[in-house]
């Protein structure tokens, strides 16, 4: 079994899992914040924020990658600043792949979570306030637990998207074996070699399997969470 894939491909699979994991984990809090803002707050520029969040869904990924490169590249203003100030390099590192994957999955997460937040009964939040909970505590003890099924759905969508992200990633962090070569980049590599289709399809099968596993796990988790939340 282990020689069904070459070592480089195993490595790419590992990297993709790692990237998808961190991309999901790190973007969740932001997705939660943005979803809450879009669902519940009134502020100027709300439509703009909504549009911005959706952008990566609508732009060709290569363009997103290009925009990331000219923003977070080591010679680009923000990229250089991050490197000087925090020593944080994103471009051409797996950390950059995390950023690219996070941004590409963000709109999917936000849509799922936002719908879940919109479904929470504001009366329950009000009730929590009458019991002494401040805004923060209302969110942490009432909104968040009730949103859990949507959060899980959103996280899994983000994770699966991150596993499959190719265009933005290769454009931003390139495709360096052992450093930034993710599963989709490896698939791309095989498609560059005549007769590489068989190997490519093997990797496609692997990524389908991972995405499916995540999807089914999420349906189960979300159903369980929904049951909990339904109060039965």
């Amino acid at each position, binding site marked *: 079994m282990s020689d069904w894939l070459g070592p480089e491909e195993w490595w790419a699979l590992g990297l993709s899992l790692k990237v998808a994991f961190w991309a999901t984990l790190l973007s969740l809090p932001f997705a939660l914040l943005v979803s809450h803002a879009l669902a519940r707050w009134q502020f100027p520029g709300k439509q703009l924020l909504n549009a911005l969040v959706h952008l990566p869904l609508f732009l060709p990924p290569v363009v997103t990658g290009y925009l990331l490169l000219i923003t977070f590249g080591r010679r680009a203003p923000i990229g250089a600043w991050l490197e000087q100030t925090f020593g944080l390099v994103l471009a051409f590192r797996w950390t950059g792949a995390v950023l690219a994957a996070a941004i590409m999955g963000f709109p999917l997460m936000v849509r799922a979570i936002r719908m879940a937040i919109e479904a929470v009964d504001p*009366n*329950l939040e*009000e*009730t*929590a*306030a*009458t*019991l*002494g*909970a*401040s805004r923060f*505590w*209302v969110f942490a*003890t*009432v909104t968040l*637990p*009730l949103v*859990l099924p949507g959060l899980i759905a959103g996280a899994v969508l983000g994770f699966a998207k991150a596993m499959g992200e190719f265009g933005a990633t290769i454009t931003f962090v390139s495709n360096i074996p052992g450093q930034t070569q993710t599963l989709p980049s490896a698939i791309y590599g095989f498609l560059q070699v005549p007769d590489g289709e068989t190997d490519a399809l093997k990797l496609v099968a692997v990524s389908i399997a991972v995405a499916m596993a995540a999807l089914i796990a999420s349906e189960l988790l979300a159903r369980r969470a929904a049951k*909990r*939340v*339904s*109060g*039965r």
Partner: protein
Amino acid sequence: MSLSVDINHSFGDLAVQVNFQAPSGITALFGKSGSGKTSVINAVAGLLKPKAGRITSQSEVLFDSRAGINVPVHRRRLGYVFQDSRLFPHLSVLGNLNYGKRFAPKGSSGPSLEEVTELLGIAHLLNRRPGALSGGEKQRVAIGRALLSHPRMLLMDEPLAALDSARKDEILPFLERLRDSTGLPILYVSHSVAEVARLATTMVVLEHGKVAQAGTTEQVFSDPAMVRQLGLREAGSVLSADVTQHHSDGLTELSVTGGRLFLPQISLPPRAKTRVRILAQDVILSRDIPVGLSALNILSGTVTEIRAGGGPGVVVQLRCGSDFLLARITQRSANALRLAPGVACHAVIKSVSVARHDVGHT
């Protein structure tokens, strides 16, 4: 003075303009649907910001439009019990009960979890989820949750309206115990006359956003002018009574200032004070002392007022001892008996018509 409310607000057509004081005990906000009860209680809770006015609780200002004060909901510490219980579905009964504890100020005092679960009879439910509770159980948990947040005051908006009468009978005694044992002031919204008669020490009657009448429950109920407010079938007086004796045939004897009453056994010891409600339509009047009737309760009194309604009926107010009694009879009978203020007569009350749930402790 535990709560003082003086607010102005308007919703489209309706101008809410309310000014009242709620002493300790249960203060009932009573009025027709749409008269502004929920709006007032929401303003007290901080869920509605009135256009103008001032709300103070135990001398702390909660809201003052002139001074620009508007204490946020979570700092008001007023336990709110909603009509629809609003339990947190993701928490167990215990989790719901303990919810407010972490936010209560350190050193704030109030009943313990044991006391509350004991009081409300929900100790066996602690591990259940809200979805597995009946309507009455849910509402008791909601009351417990509000109590355990150690509020300065309880706000209850028709806490029993959604329940059928069996469930209501289950919860009313708890509310009485609450009133009597915790000393917590309660602002209670209801349009059930029976509930208010039984529970409230003070009544504030709202009509179209204004206070139509306010006073002790006994005062408000013995005012013939209130008959219209309460509805013909619900009007009646509330008398203070002392338990005298329990008889072996299942009847309890009570003394009121105008005489004595027999009721189906009530679970209070002799010498306990209580209140009985006597519906105006359950009272028959007679000039002579009636004999040979199946009715056991006959009080003697003097007519103080006769007020004609719209229909063929009149409301007769009698003074019996120091209490007032209302009777609703036909104009024809009033004429036949030649009733007029100052006339002495007898009120015949069927013992069973003073039903158990119209009796409350004081």
